[in-house]
């Protein structure tokens, strides 16, 4: 059975139907890719899967348990982490605190209101380990707002990792990154796949086809094609957008 499953998800905003009837399954230990044109409903689908929106119909199952309808913080605590397409960081503070706040060990400490945070070396070491995974340990004590765009993307992933998730949702992790940063990100994702189940939305086809085990194509709020990268190479829509991408590049 798949680790994470969405069954017949339907979502509309007012009269605008964004997700028609989406069913997806993500296997443990795999990288699942989601692609599709702008406005297809990919991010909305992530929002529904991670609790930001409730589906109007259908259900979401994580590890056999129904999670649709639960608030995002509950779903997050069960081991579902996500990054955002538009970055979503704690910008008034240092890099390391972004990660510390997401550590389960930190979360459990909230009621010990009087214990100091930044003198707890165990907590800090744990955060440094996470930052090191994305290559940001040297910037740990810099202001989060001072990071370059690429580093902010990396921090976004680090925050998601800090929660020690079982499944990681990444919404367009390469968006806005240059070729070099994209290469580094590919290396990182490859390393992460050994420890996490990963689902990512991606426009960069080369990146996605290189990394993903399975890919689902979403269009008009529906899954129009699904398969391994090799199987999807023949898909009409995929070929057309690959062509478009090649002519753009």
């Amino acid at each position, binding site marked *: 059975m798949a680790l994470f499953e969405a069954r017949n998800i339907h979502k509309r905003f007012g009269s605008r139907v964004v997700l028609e009837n989406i069913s997806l399954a993500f296997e443990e230990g795999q990288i699942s890719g989601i692609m599709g044109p702008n406005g297809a409903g990919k991010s909305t689908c992530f929002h529904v899967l991670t609790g930001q929106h409730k589906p109007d119909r259908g259900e979401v199952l994580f590890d056999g348990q129904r999670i649709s309808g639960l608030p995002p913080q509950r779903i997050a605590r069960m081991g579902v982490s996500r990054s955002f397409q538009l970055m979503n960081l*704690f910008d008034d503070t240092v890099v390391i605190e972004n990660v510390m706040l997401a550590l389960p060990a930190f979360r459990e400490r909230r009621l010990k209101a009087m214990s100091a945070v930044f003198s707890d070396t165990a907590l800090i070491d744990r955060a440094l380990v996470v930052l090191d995974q994305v290559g940001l340990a040297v910037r740990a004590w810099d202001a989060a707002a001072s990071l370059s765009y690429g580093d902010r993307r990396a921090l976004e992933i680090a925050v998601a990792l800090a929660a020690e998730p079982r499944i990681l949702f990444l919404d367009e992790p390469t968006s806005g990154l240059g070729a070099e940063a994209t290469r580094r990100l590919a290396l990182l994702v490859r390393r992460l796949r050994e420890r996490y189940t990963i689902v990512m939305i991606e426009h960069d086809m080369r990146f996605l086809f290189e990394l993903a085990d399975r890919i689902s194509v979403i269009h008009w709020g529906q899954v129009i094609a699904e398969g391994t990268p090799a199987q999807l190479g023949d898909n009409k829509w995929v070929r057309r957008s690959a062509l478009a991408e090649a002519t753009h590049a």
Partner: protein
Amino acid sequence: MISLSDIPARPSAWITPPMIALALLLLAAPDLLPAIGLYQYLGIEIAIWIGFALGFNLLFGYTGLHSFGHGAYLGIGAYAFGLFQHHVAVSLWGGLLAAVLAAGIAGALVGAFLSHRRGIYYALLTIGFGQIFWFLAMKLHRVTGGEDGLLGIPRPPLTLGPWQVSLTDNRALFYFAAALLMIVVVLCWRLANSPFGRVLQAIRQNETRARFVGYEVWRFKWAVFTLSTMIAGLAGSLLAMAQQSAYPDVMSLHQSGLIVMMVLVGGGLVSFWGPVLGVVFYFVARDVLGGLTETWLLWYGLIFMAMVMLRPEGLAGMLHDLLRRSRPRQPSAAPAPATEAV
């Protein structure tokens, strides 16, 4: 630039140099104030409002929750203290407890309505609830005395085991208020720099992200709101003792706006100590400007507007810049913000 979320030099310290400075100033205040042409009672007012402002800023500055109806809880504390003296017993500790509990219960109820809201809806609801309490204080004439106020509130003596100290003298009452204030200061400081406080700040910075890393955001918002109303209630009980009466006017929208102005002018958005500076500045301005012109509030309003537009980091930010300029070898801590290319 400084920020509320700067990590303090010694984050685990209970007592910091600014606290010692404040304690020394408070110790000296009863002699200092008359020496600079002011009067003793002013010290009591300032101590009360500083406590109120620090608790308020946990909500307003640290968590970024904009309450414009907080005067209500100051008032509830004052009435609860007075009513306790009139109807239950003449007791200092009993009155304080009643005030903190009454304001806290009101705050907890209101907080339950507020805490799932954000932004303008949150602010509007705080105003609405504030107005309800103010209206009740005006209309429940039999209980509160209405517009005439609740009069004849005694200043019960301070009893600690075998000791008993009268608080009828303003100097004694001031030292009592100052001692309570120092407890509030240490409590707020520790809280602001605890994991709990850091989560509050995370909620200010990015409520959505805070939820997605697993925090029950609304519970934190509820807890900090309730805590700030309890501190307001404590301040209110001292106010009742100071004035020996309680009036609905502290619960009005106008007075609720004042605490916001004090906190902003002082720099509560960037510094723990901002509210302290803001309160002192307000009361000194009131008495000094007020001695010169009847239209002093107009001038204070103009200062407030200039501050918001030109120096949103307030007095605390200005003081910080001043201190840094006099110590030029300090490394500049302000990195250039990254440009968003989304």
